[in-house]
């Protein structure tokens, strides 16, 4: 697998420091797990953060903190294996990266001809939402812009738009400046994981007609 599109550096740095919200962290994490280059960048930020932690001005812990920690260590429960029950029943979900499988994934909803999505149920109330987007070969996403950021990582198949060709592992970053219209490649259905802030805005007459029904 050759990955040629990567997240911008500031997004990787925010990932490394834990500053992203749940949906963004998940999508960047899926890319980083597959991409040695970005993993090194994340490690570098973690090293710098470690140095910064080590140099931080110490603030005294509570008087009984050490005893409290030892007590928690001594009575910690045995870790129970986390089993994802849904993933085994659903072939599409069985192939997902492990970090995605940890979440509950909602039912498929049709978005447009050849395009459907399944919401990923994340804890927390981040500003962005995550979902799996599945598009059939040759499908053309409606011309759209966003009112916020859109982070996409390809899991299977491919798509192309003005920015180039995006295959498995490739990361696409769109902000509200971007007006793109991806076309799905003919190498099978394209499955992406997407984190999105704001709503999609459809352009053109068709977009205006259907947008009240399309709430991505």
């Amino acid at each position, binding site marked *: 697998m050759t990955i040629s599109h990567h997240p911008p550096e500031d997004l990787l740095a925010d990932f490394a420091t834990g500053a992203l919200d749940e949906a963004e962290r998940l999508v960047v994490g899926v890319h980083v797990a597959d991409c040695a280059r970005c993993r090194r960048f994340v490690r570098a930020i*973690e090293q710098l953060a470690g140095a910064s932690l080590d140099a931080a001005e110490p603030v005294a812990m509570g008087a009984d903190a050490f005893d409290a920690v030892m007590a928690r260590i001594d009575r910690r429960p045995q870790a129970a294996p986390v089993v994802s029950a849904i993933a085994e029943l659903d072939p599409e979900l069985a192939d997902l990266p492990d970090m995605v499988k940890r979440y509950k994934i909602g039912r498929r909803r049709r978005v447009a001809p050849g395009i459907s999505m399944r919401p990923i149920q994340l804890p*927390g109330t981040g500003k962005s939402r995550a979902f799996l987007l599945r598009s059939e070969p040759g499908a053309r996403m409606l011309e759209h812009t966003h009112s916020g950021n859109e982070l996409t990582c390809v899991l299977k198949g491919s798509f192309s738009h003005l920015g180039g060709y995006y295959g498995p592992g490739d990361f696409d970053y769109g902000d509200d400046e971007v007006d793109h219209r991806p076309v799905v490649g003919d190498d099978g259905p394209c499955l992406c994981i997407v984190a999105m802030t704001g709503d999609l805005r459809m352009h053109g007459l068709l977009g205006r007609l259907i947008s009240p029904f399309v709430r991505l």
Partner: protein
Amino acid sequence: MDWAELIGRVAARGDREAFKALFEHFAPRIKGFLIKTGCNADDAEEISQSTMVAVWTKAGQFDPSTAGAAAWIFTIARNQRIDAARKAIRDGRVSKEIVLDEEADPTLAADQIVSRVEDATRVAAAIERLSVEQSTVIRLSFIEERPHSEIAALLGLPLGTVKSRIRLAMNRLRDLLDDAT
């Protein structure tokens, strides 16, 4: 003090003396670091404690050839902070509980461990070649999460210079990491 060796002793035989030394050094620094990056004192205390609990339980996963002790402890503290935020939201919600692996490391997939040692060497070499000026702006902007205006005031630089310096530092780090190929 060789922190990596102490972590190894905790992993190998549950050495409480070694753990106490780690606790005394790192716990107050984790707390200080968390407060500096925006945590309140109570949360910082709790996250520092749970981080040290995780240092004990995960000591066996620490590999000194791939990460420094401080960076490893940072990643644990970061994940504990993320989990604490999730928990706070979950506790405020009566139903619809979502159960998650509490200490999941978002960056680590089991099959990704192939060339970690080689990576670690490259990462260390790249960081060494960053200028002080560059590592300083990365630290202030991303690790301490200070707004650009504050960094400008702190360094006595115009805002525009700060912004371009941050961008250059990030590009340089990326280039240094790519270079070593």
